[in-house]
């Protein structure tokens, strides 16, 4: 037989000029918007507030009022970043304007740290120097600038620099102790022991519920893919679970688990009762089951029937076909379900604080009771960070696993 090479049926790929120009335009608009917001937040709005203690109202200042020359420097950095966004893009322009935007925020951060230190020296340990709305808007502005800059930066290295520079600079700044007297840092230092304990519990909820969802949801998804009856029963109940408001769901679980704990000594010995970790864990698990099960079901249903037919026709047993053919082909989509479950559980674990189950939500509610925004953020920021890290990490794994998936689409 002669080798045949008929492969002329592949579509040509390449950038579409019009689309590229439009993307470039939107990068400029986003970059300019970011720089503009950055500049505005420097000159107006509450950037920093000084209070003798947590409870009382304090004095709010704009960045220019609070920092003087350093405020003008930040303003100049924002303006430069906007100017670079308007120039013709070259290899370095993205990194440059991202660095300018980040530097503006970092400059003001360092200045705020210094102001906080002198305020604390004057007022004592109870003094709190807290960020106001303008600061958080400036963070958003820096993100917009970096985001649009990343899009116009060609190399992977350049994009990594844009993403990592602000993080590394922030860690370096914190390591010098320059930020130690800021309200949020002080609250964190004060609650450090609690923080570590609640972070652990929070991770237990997020990872535990996701782990449970993997262990139960994948077999349930496989079962649903194999039988319409199983699908109706399983997906029907999971859908029902989804429509309950989370807090109401926890409320339902409390008497049920409480009764179980009272009735059976072994259940009680596991630490399961109406309050504490058990009801929250069950609710998070039910929520996490949905994306994992549904994605497993969909992924297996999407497999080319001819592939399954030949697997069976060549003598694979059902298990062999499942592990050697169906699961590998379903893997990227199942993983996407796991990612959704993990991100969702990470945010959802705040619930535990409502029923004495601990977690970072406890710190957040404590902050709300104390009307201390800094303390609220000590609870909330790590949750956001965890969710982002989990999401990005699993996306990377998906993309690596999807290398083969793309080629059989």
């Amino acid at each position: 037989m002669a080798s045949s090479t008929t492969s002329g049926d592949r579509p040509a790929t390449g950038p579409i000029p019009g689309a590229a120009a439009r993307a470039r335009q939107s990068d400029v608009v986003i970059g300019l918007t970011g720089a503009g917001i950055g500049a505005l937040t420097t000159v107006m709005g509450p950037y920093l507030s000084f209070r003798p203690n947590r409870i009382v109202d304090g004095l709010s200042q704009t960045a220019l009022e609070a920092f003087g020359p350093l405020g003008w420097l930040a303003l100049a950095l924002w303006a430069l970043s906007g100017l670079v966004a308007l120039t013709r893009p070259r290899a370095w322009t993205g990194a440059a304007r991202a660095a300018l935007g980040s530097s503006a925020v970092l400059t003001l951060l360092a200045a705020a740290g210094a102001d906080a230190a002198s305020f604390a020296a004057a007022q004592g340990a109870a003094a709190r120097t807290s960020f106001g709305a303008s600061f958080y808007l400036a963070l958003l502005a820096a993100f917009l600038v970096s985001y649009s800059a990343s899009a116009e930066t060609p190399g992977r290295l350049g994009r990594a620099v844009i993403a990592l520079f602000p993080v590394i600079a922030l860690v370096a700044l914190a390591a010098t102790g320059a930020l130690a007297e800021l309200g949020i840092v002080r609250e964190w230092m004060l609650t450090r022991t609690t923080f570590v304990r609640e972070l652990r519990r929070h991770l237990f909820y997020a990872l535990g519920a996701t782990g449970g969802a993997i262990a139960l949801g994948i077999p349930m998804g496989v079962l649903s893919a194999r039988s319409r009856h199983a699908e109706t029963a399983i997906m029907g109940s999971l859908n029902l679970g989804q429509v309950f408001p989370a807090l109401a769901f926890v409320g339902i679980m409390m008497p049920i688990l409480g009764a179980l704990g009272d009735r059976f000594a072994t259940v009680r010995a596991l630490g399961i009762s109406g309050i504490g970790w058990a009801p929250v864990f069950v609710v998070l698990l039910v929520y996490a089951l949905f994306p994992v099960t549904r994605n497993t079901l969909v992924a297996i249903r999407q497999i080319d029937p001819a592939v399954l037919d030949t697997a069976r026709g060549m003598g694979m047993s059902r298990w062999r076909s499942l592990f050697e053919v169906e699961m590998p082909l379903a893997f990227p989509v199942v993983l996407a379900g796991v990612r959704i479950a993990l991100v969702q559980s990470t945010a959802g674990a705040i619930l535990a604080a409502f029923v004495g189950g601990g977690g970072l939500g406890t710190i957040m509610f404590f902050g709300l009771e104390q009307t201390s925004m800094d303390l609220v953020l000590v609870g909330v920021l790590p949750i956001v960070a965890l969710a982002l890290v989990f999401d990005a990490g699993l996306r990377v794994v998906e993309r690596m696993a999807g290398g083969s998936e793309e080629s059989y689409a």
Partner: protein
Amino acid sequence: MIELRNVTKRYDTTVAVDDVTLTVPDGELTILLGPSGCGKTTLLRTINRMVELDAGEVLIDGQSIRSTPPEVLRRHIGYAIQSVGLFPHMTVRRNIATVPRLLGWDAVRIEARVTELLSLVGLDPASYADKRPAELSGGEAQRIGVARALAADPPVLLMDEPFGALDPINRERLQREFASLHRRLGKTVVFVTHDIEEAVLLGDRIVLMREGQIVQTGSPEELWRGPEHQFVRDFFGDEFGLRILSRHRIADLEPGATPQGASARVHLDTNLRDALAIMVTESVERVTILDGERVVGGLSFCDIVTQVRGSL
């Protein structure tokens, strides 16, 4: 030898295969032919128990297929289908090695077999073994599908319209290559198609089916010469004779006298249909037959018409 005895398969109210009895001799390529919905694919799939029977039995070499668990049975029956069904996440090598792996062959033996099979289906082992199915053209994928079906050297091969999805040029090339492969390997092949041309070209025997039943069984020549039913005549149509001609070479006929003067020259290996086409194109009634460079006689329009029905 595969024997199907009173095989019946029903789906709800419809009878897909209705009391079919058929013997498939060893080493022959038997075609199950018929219009869509005639039950040919269902009948094929009863042989490797992809379809379980409602009545009747299937024997391979005298042994009921029910005496072997389906998975084990299928590992000894090659299986190739129209949509190929290569495993997209595995390399070509691993795809071909599927059944040998199920049978527990060692790595050295598997590697040697993969190399052998790739050469057999006309693909360079060095450049194809590590490719993924998505990197293959339709024709290449189908070659790999055939190689995979042959991997563990099964005595029986089941093929369900294996070349149906290919473009006409690739289809014909693969058909011819497969015909010569079959002559070399001598496998017992059961081959489903609805394509009359393919059936006549490849089949040692054709089993013509309609509505779950066999209408007539025989070699293409037998069906052509002695159709037992109007359906056979209608199904094959007026071109049947021409298609039969394409199965035979000039060498199969008695050579006649060498024509005088200049005339079109055709080789002994030319099939009769092509020889006829040359006569029509050249507007001659007689051509000169060559064996290599040597003139061995002549062939006339009348020779084809008169001899074919008698001697083939």
